[in-house]
């Protein structure tokens, strides 16, 4: 009788030890799985933003800027008369340079759009449209040279020819390039949202499985202490410490990665997207100024598009362009409305100078207006554009830093966490082996 009771008790003791250590091992395995899942999903997010979409946004906004610059250069050569010969030549060189850059941007955009047929079709239609644009622009330039006019608005037939070219650019090509950038923004936003919920799920899973593993390890320790009257099973203590360290470090790394991604998205990607869009729109505003001078039939239209774009960038409640320029104040909304602190002040100052120069240009007429546009207005624009470019650069490096930090955390996680958890598992086995042997 006593023999059977003892035997049963022995069986149940070894069974419990096996059960508890089995559970601890299982929990460790699940913990590892949760880490791997979390790291993989953040890794995907980092790849989407850092290595696919980021470069795509730069390629497409570059495209928009280069194309509107190309059209602005055509307007400029038409506006400058024969007495500006060398400058016209410089404009043509600039034009060829832009064309080269556009080809590169198009190739890049096409390569990065490989898995999105709609984006690909847009790039194809841009290539086709640019060919048509070149033909129309060349025609306008030919008519312009033949007319041999002095500085100022060219003859009507030149304006009509240019209208066809610039219409194509502004009504078909530029919108497609702009939408391409927006679409990339959409892809990133969605990837980011999906990744964020996946990461928070993974984090929960890590906490749950980690606590489970620690619980099992502690229970095993307590049980062994009571049952075998030993205070410590050293291997198990080390295993517990390893599991706890793994849990804390892993969580910290996952958090760091998540933060890096968040940083890359909001301070890097979003800012670069907004600022480069602003830069592209500003370029086209500068073009609207020369078109305003060039085309007396469409003066009103170009003034209106200028105002429309100005309100997109720096929104101030106003009824007309002079009203807008008079009411400009620091508490503006619009694309640049998100800027804060010193950046906001700096950018606002140069933007205001650009708008003031514009207001002055619109009070002048004839050659005086063209001279002012060529001199002070262009300088004011370039000053403003320079500050924008600087800000873009800075956010680009913020972006790259964040992506690097995320990549670094990911690498550390891959290197140490699986090893630590595997060591923990081995130690558990080592810790219970002597106890189980007592029951053989």
């Amino acid at each position: 009788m006593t023999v059977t009771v003892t035997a049963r008790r022995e069986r149940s003791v070894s069974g419990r030890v096996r059960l508890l250590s089995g559970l601890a091992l299982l929990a460790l395995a699940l913990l590892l799985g949760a880490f791997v899942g979390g790291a993989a999903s953040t890794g995907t997010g980092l790849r989407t933003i850092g290595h696919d979409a980021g470069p795509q946004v730069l390629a497409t906004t570059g495209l928009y800027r280069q194309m509107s610059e190309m059209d602005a250069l055509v307007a400029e050569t038409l506006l400058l008369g024969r007495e500006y010969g060398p400058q016209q030549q410089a404009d043509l060189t600039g034009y060829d340079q832009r064309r080269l850059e556009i080809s590169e941007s198009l190739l890049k955009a096409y390569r990065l759009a490989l898995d999105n047929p709609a984006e690909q079709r847009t790039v194809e239609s841009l290539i086709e449209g640019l060919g048509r644009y070149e033909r129309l622009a060349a025609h306008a330039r030919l008519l312009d040279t033949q007319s041999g006019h002095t500085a100022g608005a060219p003859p009507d037939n030149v304006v009509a020819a240019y209208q066809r070219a610039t219409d194509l650019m502004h009504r078909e090509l530029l919108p497609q390039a702009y939408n391409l950038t927006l679409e990339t923004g959409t892809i990133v936003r969605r990837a980011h949202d999906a990744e964020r919920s996946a990461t928070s799920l993974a984090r929960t899973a890590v906490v749950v499985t980690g606590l489970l593993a620690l619980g099992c390890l502690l229970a095993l320790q307590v049980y062994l202490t009571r049952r075998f009257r030993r205070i410590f099973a050293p291997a198990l203590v080390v295993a517990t410490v390893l599991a706890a360290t793994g849990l804390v470090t892993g969580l910290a790394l996952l958090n760091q990665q998540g933060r890096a991604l968040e940083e890359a998205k909001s301070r890097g990607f979003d800012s670069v997207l907004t600022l480069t869009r602003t830069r592209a729109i500003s370029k086209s505003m500068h073009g609207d100024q020369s078109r305003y001078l060039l085309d007396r039939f469409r003066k009103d239209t170009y003034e209106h598009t200028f105002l429309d774009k100005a309100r997109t960038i720096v929104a101030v409640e106003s009824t007309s362009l002079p009203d807008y320029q008079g009411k400009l104040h620091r508490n503006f909304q619009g694309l640049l409305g998100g800027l804060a602190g010193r950046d906001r002040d700096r950018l606002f100052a140069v933007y205001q100078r650009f708008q003031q120069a514009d207001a002055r240009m619109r009070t002048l007429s004839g050659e005086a207006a063209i001279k002012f546009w060529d001199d002070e207005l262009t300088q004011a624009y370039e000053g403003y554009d320079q500050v924008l470019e600087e800000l873009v650069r800075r956010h680009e490096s913020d972006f790259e830093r964040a992506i690097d930090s995320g990549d670094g955390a990911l690498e550390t996680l891959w290197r140490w966490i699986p090893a630590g958890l595997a060591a923990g598992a081995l130690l558990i086995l080592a810790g219970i082996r002597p106890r189980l042997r007592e029951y053989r």
Partner: protein
Amino acid sequence: MRRLLICLLLVLTACGTARPESFVDKDELIVAIRTDVPLISFKGPNGAYQGFNIDVAQDLVTRLGKRIRWLEIKAGDQLTVLTERRADLVFAHMSVTPERKKVIDFAGPYHVDFQDIAVRPADKAAIRDVRDLEGRKICWVRGTNIAQRIVDERRVKAIPVEAPDYDVCLDMIKDGMIDAISTNSQILAGLLTKPGVDLHLVGATFNEQRTSIGVRKGDVDGCEELNRAITRMYQDGTAHMLLDKWFGKSGIDLSVVSVPQFEGCS
């Protein structure tokens, strides 16, 4: 142990991130339209809705894999049907303005055209562009921003005369109470098809009109989906086909069809 469980529960509930409400989650969308704009959205002889906006709405909503329930609205209700949640989308030939953007969001534009002017044939020689409206009476339909765009934005001192809708404008110009009607060239082209209307289109393309779809404020997902559908509608030629179907004979110049540059959804 109990404390541990409570902890776990807290962590688990905290991770359920709330996704903002979007029409994307619905199968049937309530689309608000007007029924008093010829060629654009009107009731045909058999009582069915017809027009450019109707076709565009149908095409886009079908591309999103959803059904439509139409809701008739009057001019001036475009914003309230969204803010009061009576409609999911508004196809009312609305253009984007900063004021409107404060209360609703805009998907698209799905079409870009210009503002034009319609005058009596007798005034054909006197009114040739927007500056010639100085000192003349123009129609201002309540809820639209057209008159403001001439008087404030273009600084042309025309005199706006208020009217509840364009039919009243037509009566007023016939009776000599006003001199001109100015709005989107598409809307004007539609008005000119009405029986008994004898007006001349000036062809003064001065303000760009970006005709957009009203969506509820904050519905970024829905807005982005609509923009993707619009891109496809332009890429596969449907947009050109629909423009030609409704405006091919209207006198509007369709030789260059603008690709709409999107407003952006956030």
